[in-house]
């Protein structure tokens, strides 16, 4: 009995020794900054001189800051449109690329290519392509007699353009969809065929239900990523015109780094964290529609 306990203890210790580098890494680079930012959110802090306690003032003041309310709305608009749009488009793209055709792998690679391009580089590229005066798209529109489209230069169209641009990175979701499709056993499709199910019926009654874990994963990741959207805003629009594309993550960066108001930025970051946490929990709690072939565990 004693030997058994000793062996168990030894195994546990060995396990923790292996885990220790990760635990320490997480503690130093995730938990500690998290705790510190929570503390800073109750202080006035300029990154250098010691923080001054201001209680809940930052949580109150952030609402009166330039474009903050607008940024909250923009963040939700962006997330609520770009996530379903991304899911829908990447699903059908993956469906098309799942076809057993010669050379299909080349197309898969091509559609995945934007994901491996640095976000800043693609942002600059997009800025040029969509330029109001000399952008290639507006040149085409002009040649077709359609007139110019404002894209990122007008308050009315900038957010829409940003949402459409979010599809640029749908290659990563597409890859997960493809993996999901591959995991569905051919038996189901054969049965559907024998029963006389057409392609749409099979899609709705076999493919979609069997890939609900993939939908669930893509949905959760989509919500988290879209609520934290930063790089395209920073590179392409800088939050403009007139704050129409400003998002919470962009506000956090601007207040923390450009204005050196780290207390306010931390309060905004915690506000964003609460939103993401709440939405993620909500999606988790309502996941009865997800079908796990081998059971949930």
């Amino acid at each position, binding site marked *: 009995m004693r030997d058994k306990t000793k062996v168990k203890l030894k195994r546990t210790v060995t396990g923790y*020794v292996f885990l220790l580098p990760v635990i320490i890494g997480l503690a130093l680079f995730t938990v500690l900054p998290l705790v510190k930012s929570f503390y800073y959110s109750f202080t006035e802090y300029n990154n250098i001189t010691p923080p001054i306690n201001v209680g809940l003032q930052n949580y109150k003041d952030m609402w009166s800051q330039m474009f903050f309310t607008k940024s909250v709305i923009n963040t939700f608009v962006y997330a609520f449109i770009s996530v379903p749009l991304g899911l829908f488009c990447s699903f059908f793209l993956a469906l098309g690329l799942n076809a057993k055709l010669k050379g299909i792998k080349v197309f898969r690679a091509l559609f995945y290519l934007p994901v491996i391009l640095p976000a800043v580089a693609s942002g600059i590229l997009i800025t040029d392509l969509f330029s109001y*005066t000399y952008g290639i798209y507006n040149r085409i529109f002009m040649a077709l007699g359609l007139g110019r489209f404002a894209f*990122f230069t007008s308050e009315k169209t900038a957010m829409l353009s940003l949402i459409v641009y979010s599809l640029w990175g749908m290659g990563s979701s597409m890859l997960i969809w493809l993996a999901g499709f591959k995991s569905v056993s051919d038996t189901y499709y054969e049965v559907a065929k024998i029963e006389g199910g057409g392609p749409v019926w099979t899609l709705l009654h076999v493919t979609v239900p069997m890939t609900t874990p993939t939908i669930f994963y893509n949905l959760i990741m989509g919500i988290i990523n879209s609520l934290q959207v930063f790089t395209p805003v920073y590179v392409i629009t800088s939050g403009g015109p007139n704050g129409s594309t400003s998002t919470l993550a962009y506000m956090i960066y601007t207040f923390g780094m450009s204005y050196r108001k780290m207390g306010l930025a931390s309060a905004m970051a915690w506000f964003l964290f609460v939103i993401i946490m709440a939405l993620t929990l909500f999606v988790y709690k309502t996941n009865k529609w997800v079908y796990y072939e081998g059971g949930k565990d």
Partner: protein
Amino acid sequence: MKRFKRIAVFLAAVVLVLSFAACDGGGGLFGRPNRKNVFRVGISENTEEHAMMQSLIAGFKKANTDVTIDFSVESYSGNYSDKLVSQASSGELPDLFFTLDSLVGYFASTKITVDLGDYFTQYGFSDDLIYPEVAEVGKVGDEIHMLGREYSQVVLYYNKAIFDDAGESYPSESWTWDDMISAAGKIAKLDSDGTVLRAGLDMRLNWPVTMLQYFEGKGGTLFNENGTAGQINDKARAAYTELRDMTKSGAILDTFGNTGLSFTGSNVGMYFGVRADAPVINKSLASWDVVHVPDMETNVVALGASGYSVSALGQHKDLAVRFLFYIMSAEGQTILARSGNVVPALKSLADSNEWKDYPKAGINQNAFLQETGVKKVFPISTYMSKPQNAGMLTDALNKQVTSPILSSSGAISASDWSSYETALTNAMK
């Protein structure tokens, strides 16, 4: 199996130690890196800046043979201000670093830069040796936190090819503001749908210093005298409306419009720039020249400056100060001048060909020199009661005032003007 486990545990322990070591710069497990043998200089990522600094270091070492320490030049790409702030907040500011006027207030308020005024007597330096405007931009109250390396006033660059194409005569020193605007309107080219294909002048509407110059010249104000609240007076309101109309006609480039038009891209005829722009313009345009900014109702010229500051936290403070005063000496200033980027801050070098032959001879170099009898407009931070909020005020001015006004049409209501003032006030708090 037992042996394998032992090896595995040992390897895990090694990984752990290496993880700690990786977080460390070499000064003990959690200690700060030892920088006793390295003198760090921070500059912005730029080929010309790098070359300039290397020449300065070589010159300094030649003149000071007792200095044997290694110099390490660290250049930061991207947003230089943000990089400096990150360095400052982690206590890693280089011993000496290139500074922008907009950051001087922040550094002074956080006491991380040295008051250079304390060293003037020791190094035989005085404000009288440099242009008073240059001395001004480095000051915060009675303290000096940056020594401006150059005299950098806003000038009017012009592209001769565009003027030739438009059949207009080149700008001259006798031009008034109205002459310039009239020529800008004639240079502008619009598409059938009213899109500006070629603009007359890039006034750089997102640069507060040129905006302040414009409003000051028109007799307008943007904020009160104390620098605590937005105050857009009637003249400034009229000037704003005029500016909006000029951007619509293409006379002035709408900087916020993502138009893809630029002076160096040869689709803008004139440009408000400073001396530091000259090398890039020289590389981009075949034929260009420069004149003073034409006179407005009030004759004004805007000034900005960059220079160097010394970190109060650095390990080589004395050496940094010594090197800085070398940069400000005639020898150091001459090295800077030869880059073509800089008009030396030393008044004694005003007529020197060391800078007047760069980036090319034969241009109107006097346009870069100090004008007398003209009101000087300084960077926005110098007008604020809290200069550390300069970045926020700049964004408020650009994003909450100028950009919405430029995209508006018709008369601007009193409540809109009031909201613009509130935006400026909030940013100055």
